[in-house]
C-alpha cells in the first residue's frame, strides 16, 4: 500500500495535500485497490461550498458505489475533468490523479486529519 508521507488522510480513505490556501483532494491507494475497477466518477460543480464531511461526489466501480466526503471545509475551485472520460486513472495513480481542489481558510482546522503513519495503522487494523 502506497501512502505518501507528505499528505494528510481521512478514515474515509481520502487524501489531502495542503499548499497555502489550496487543498487538493483525492482517494487513497487503499481505496482504489479495495474498490477495484473504477468505471465512473461523479464530480461536483466548480464554486460549490463544501463543509467538512459533506458528500461532494461519487466513485463507482463495477460492483460498488461509494460517496466522496470532503475532508475539510472550502470552496471548489477546480475539478479534474479528465476523470469524466478516464475514471480508471484513479486506479492507475490515485495520488497523481487528484479529484478536486478547494480554496480553504488559512486557519483551517486540520486536527482531524491523519498523518501517513496513523492512516496506515488505521487501514491495517480495519482490513
Amino acid at each position, binding site marked *: 500500500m502506497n501512502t505518501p508521507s507528505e499528505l494528510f488522510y481521512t478514515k474515509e480513505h481520502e487524501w489531502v495535500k495542503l499548499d497555502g490556501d489550496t487543498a487538493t483532494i483525492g482517494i487513497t491507494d487503499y481505496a482504489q485497490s479495495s474498490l477495484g*475497477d473504477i*468505471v*465512473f466518477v461523479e464530480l461536483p460543480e466548480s464554486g460549490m461550498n463544501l463543509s467538512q464531511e459533506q458528500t461532494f461526489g*461519487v466513485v*463507482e466501480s*463495477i*460492483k460498488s458505489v461509494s460517496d466522496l466526503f470532503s475532508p475539510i471545509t472550502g470552496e471548489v475551485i477546480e475539478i479534474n475533468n479528465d476523470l469524466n472520460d478516464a475514471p480508471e486513472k484513479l486506479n492507475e495513480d490515485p495520488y497523481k490523479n487528484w479529484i478536486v481542489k478547494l480554496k480553504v481558510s488559512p486557519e483551517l482546522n486540520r486536527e482531524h486529519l491523519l498523518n501517513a503513519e496513523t492512516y496506515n495503522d488505521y487501514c491495517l487494523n480495519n482490513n
Partner: protein
Amino acid sequence: MTELKTTALYHTHENLKAKLVPFAGFKMPLNYSDIKTEVAAIRNKAGAFDVSHMGIVEITGDKINEFIDHLITNNYSTLKNMKAVYSPIINEKGGIIDDLICYKINQKNAYIVFNASNIEKDLNWMNQVNQDFNNQINFISDQTGLLAVQGPEAFDILIKEFNFPTEIKDLPPFSLQEITFEGETLLLATTGYTGEKGCELFVPNNIIADFFAKLVEFGVTPCGLAARDVLRLEVAYPLYGNDLTINHNPYECGLAWTVKLKKENFLGKTAIENKKTKVKLKKFVLDKKSIPRQGYKVLNENDREIGVVSSGTFSPTIEKGIAMAHIETVAISETENYYIQIRNKKVQATEITGNFLD
C-alpha cells in the same frame, strides 16, 4: 453469528489470493484478480468458478418423474435420460421459492441443483412434497462439488489437457455426459450462468482441488462471484433474491416459458392460472456515464415511479450501465420513454429485447 461454511476448494482460493467474502452462509471468492479481467477471460477464452456452495440433492426412487413434475413448473417427465431442465419452484400463492436445474440420469436417478441461499428452505420444501412420492432425497454437497468451466475455449482445454472426449463439443445445451477422469466418474452438464459455451462439472470433493489447480495451470482463469454476477446479467439471466423473489410469480420475471400449464398438475398451478401479472421484468441499457443499481427507481416522462431496478451493474463487455427492472404492467402501455433515477439525476434508459450482448 454462525460460522461460515467453506467448500472443498477453500485453501485453493486462499492460495490463489482470492478476496473471500461471506455469501449465503459460505466464505466464497468475490474475485481473484480484477472483475474486468475475469469477465474478459470468460467472454474471450476460458474461466472457472467454484460453485460448490450451491445445494445438490441426488434423488433415487420409482416416482421421480411424478415428484419433480409436481415440484417444478417446467416439464420433467417428458425429458430424455441425460438431459437437464431449468425451472422455478413456486408456492401455493404462485410466489417463486427458488429457481433450479433438474438433471435426469435415468428414470430412477436424478440430481437437483439449487441456490446456496435457499438450501434449507428448498430441502424442507422438497422433503415435504416428496412425502406423497416416497423417493430418497440425499443432500450430497458434502461429497460432491460443482465447477463451472465456461468460455469459448473451455471445451478445447478440457479435451486437450484433461483427456475429455471430443464429442463433448457437440453436446447440445442442457445435456449430460459421464466422464472418467483419473479413475473417478465426473458428470458433465452443458449448463452455465454466463451465456458462453462450456459446462458445469459435478466433481467428487476428493479430487476437486487437484482438478481446479490443473484448470488454472492450463490457462483457465479462476473467476469469482462478482464476475459471475456481471456475466449473468450481461446475458439477462435472472438471479434469485434480485429478479426472482417470493413476492413475484414466474410471469412477472420473464419466466413464462418455464410454466407448462398443460401439465396436469403442479404446485402453485391454480394460483398462477388466475393471478394477475402486476409487474413485468424489463431490460434497460444506459449510456456509459450512468450505472443503474438494485433498488433504483424507474420513472416515466411525468416523473411517476413505475418500477424498480432488480439488478444493475456496469457491463465491462459493452461498457455501459445495464439493468433489469420490475415495471408495473399497467404503466407499460402508456410509457414511451423510461428513466432511471440515479441520485439526483433522471437518466433515460433504453429498453432492449434479447440480451445485452446481442
